[in-house]
């Protein structure tokens, strides 16, 4: 069982990293849609160029999560894909549309009209996809998906009832707000132009407000869920309160840092805020994959497979983490936007 919990924690860690990296790439799409003012064009270019080198790598964390889930907890994956077929399928359309429109926007002949059209697809897909991913996360916590583990994990509930409900959508909007917040905070460190920094500082503060509003809404509607233990642990468990306190503290500090324009530290604390939120969800959710019938212990796959996966992850990390470090060092250590934009106009990029 130690093995099963180890792998479950790895999945949670991968989810946190995906939220921090892939989430911010989705959030960037929000600011593409909401680009405005005299620097609207520049804001869009900043969005495009800052996610350009990293979005493929950031996206892989989602694959990592899915693959570990279906390899180590196969019934959990099957139940998830059966009960939540509709939102997952829609999220996939979003992922496909986002990727395609992003590269079309970036690599098609630079004509303003065509670019604006792809830009619109990109931003709409970037908004819908995280909402749906949030809906999936919310749905596994509500307790509205019922399963019969003793009957080969047969799904007992329908294909809409588990997720067409206030709580999953509250989580969806909360997720979107978090991602948009992260993206805006990151953007302040992508450019050296103070005016552009100011634009994204204001956007980050606005998104922080949305995070608080949707966070409170989600906490309230979690009571509507049929799964008592979840909202109880979410709202009253000791560990939950610890993570909740950490998230609140990080939110206050990150707001203060944004107000005083200390972006370098702001980026780190904003990341801590999101980490605390996702980790807190994970702690409240444990030991369930899909509350209340599918747990870490009853859905676990063959232990020989789990052991192999842990070994592979350990060995793989040795080569992969330095590569990831190099990627972020090359592109994210210092603001690179101005130089990249120049390279783009001269056709070097």
């Amino acid at each position, binding site marked *: 069982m130690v093995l099963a919990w180890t792998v479950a924690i790895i999945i949670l860690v991968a989810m946190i990293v995906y939220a921090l990296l892939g989430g911010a790439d989705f959030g960037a799409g929000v600011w593409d849609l909401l680009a405005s003012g005299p620097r609207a064009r520049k804001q869009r270019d900043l969005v495009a160029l800052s996610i*350009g*080198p*990293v979005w*493929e*790598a950031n*996206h*892989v964390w*989602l694959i990592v999560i*899915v*693959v570990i889930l*279906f*390899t*180590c907890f*196969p*019934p959990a*994956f*099957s139940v*998830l*894909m*059966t009960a939540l077929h509709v939102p*997952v*399928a829609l999220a*996939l*359309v979003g*992922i*496909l*549309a*986002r*990727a*395609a429109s*992003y*590269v*079309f926007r*970036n*690599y*098609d*002949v630079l004509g303003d009209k065509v670019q604006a059209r792809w830009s619109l697809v990109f931003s709409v897909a970037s908004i819908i996809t995280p909402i749906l991913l949030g809906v999936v996360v919310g749905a596994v916590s509500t307790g509205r998906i019922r399963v019969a583990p003793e009957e*080969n*994990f*047969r*799904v007992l509930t329908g*294909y809409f009832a588990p997720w067409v409900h206030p709580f999953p959508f509250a989580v969806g909007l909360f997720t979107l707000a978090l991602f948009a917040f992260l993206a805006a905070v990151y953007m302040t460190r992508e450019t050296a132009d103070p005016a552009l920094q100011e634009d994204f500082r204001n956007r980050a503060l606005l998104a922080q407000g949305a995070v608080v509003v949707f966070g409170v809404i989600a906490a309230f509607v979690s009571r509507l869920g049929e799964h008592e233990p979840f909202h109880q642990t979410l709202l009253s468990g000791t560990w939950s309160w610890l993570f909740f306190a950490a998230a609140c503290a990080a939110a206050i500090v990150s707001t203060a840092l944004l107000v005083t324009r200390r972006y370098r530290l702001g980026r780190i604390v904003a990341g801590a805020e999101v980490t605390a939120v996702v980790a807190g969800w994970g702690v409240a959710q444990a030991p369930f994959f899909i509350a209340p019938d599918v747990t870490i212990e009853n859905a676990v796959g*063959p232990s*020989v*497979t789990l052991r*192999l*996966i842990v070994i*592979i992850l350990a060995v*793989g990390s040795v080569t*992969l983490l330095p*590569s990831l470090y*190099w*990627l972020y060092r*090359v*592109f994210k250590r210092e603001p*690179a936007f101005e*130089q990249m934009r120049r*390279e783009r106009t001269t056709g*070097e*990029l």
Partner: protein
Amino acid sequence: MGAGEGYPTPAGRPTCQMMDDILFARTQMGISLGFHIVFAAIGIAMPLLMVISEALWLKTKDREYLELTKAWAKGSAVLIAIGAASGTVLSFELGLLFPEFMKHAGGIIGIPFGLEGFAFFAEAIFIGIYLFGWNRVPPRWHLASGVIVAFAGALSAVFVITTNAWMNAPRGFRYENGEFSDIDPWVAMTTPYGVHEIIHMLVAAYLATGILVAAIHGFILLRHPESTVHRKAFGMAMAMAIPMAIVQPFVGDVASRQVARYQPLKLAAMESQYKTEARAPLRIGGFPSHEGRSTSYAIEIPGFLSFLAHGDADAVVRGLEEWPEEDWPPVVVHYAFQLMVALGLLMFALALWGGIHWVLKKRLPPSRAFLWCTVIAGPMGMAAIEFGWIVTEVGRQPWVIYEVMRTADAVTPMPGLITPLIVTCVVYAFLSVAVIVVLYRQVRIGPGIPPALRAQEA
């Protein structure tokens, strides 16, 4: 055993609708795979062309190689991104459409998927550095990033094909009364069926991409014969395609012998061999009929199938009649196989022409006829890949895990699968058109086109 047996049915759902849903699910999976495989093949082979061109730029300092590398990199960026996204769709779709399959297969054959995740990770990291790092990392490191992308792309394919090989020749578990036990993922992922599948597909990817790229540059050369950039591009792409096209029929021969050994029923369907007989003939063309249990209008070469399958013209080849009809794969397997072989042989002929000329005269045939033939052959490689996967996958039916689990027993209990199928068709049709338009416009403003034309486009 009826197709619906063991199928998790909500009460009161009619059987014919279930059969339709199974067909819809299979079609959706087929379309998703058919779409993804083109981008996957390009993702394997295009980075190799890219790094060869970049290495030549670093070595010769001829700026045309740099221009070409950048043009190819831009095209690859689009194609690889779509390949990555459509691959993501596939990994979820396995669960969305066939949750019963994943419930059991996940624990047995998930490991290669995990390894593929690592290869994909490496590919994604270094493609970012490659595309955006021209002025940010030293030239050698930039080239090395490209090499990693090329290598990781091929490695991804190796792992994914390993899982497919396991579905065709499953092992590494014991299956009794619907229960899987004694699971050994290592035995599962080293199924001997993987070797020929992997080699056949990797060769196909380099061949199909090479000939497609050569056709595009060949087409431009026909209109602008003086363009040295396109001459270089054509040469490099053909240098990749020609050896692959020459090797491929022999790899295919090995593959068919493996099919004969592990899936004799599939071989019988491919060759539409209804009767078990010694000196079985090789049929070229023809229209098989499951009802009439015969193939009409085929050209038959006596004993040749026995020879190809078992290395002996007098060997006995088992016909479809040996298996219950409900286990027979659809007749489309026969047509797809014939088309794949025909296209492979056409490309083989073209490669011989180019290859012999190159060996004798140290250059490709300079004639317009050769360029035209290459342009016509351009889409053949990709078409052959599609037909090949139809043979592999439709030929595996009605099983999802060969002779262990039926596709019908793996499909999702969700009704109304026509809706996701229609959405899939619309999305992929739209994406296909968009990709072609974007790439066409890229080529129009690419290197080697007279500035007048470029101005027109801008």
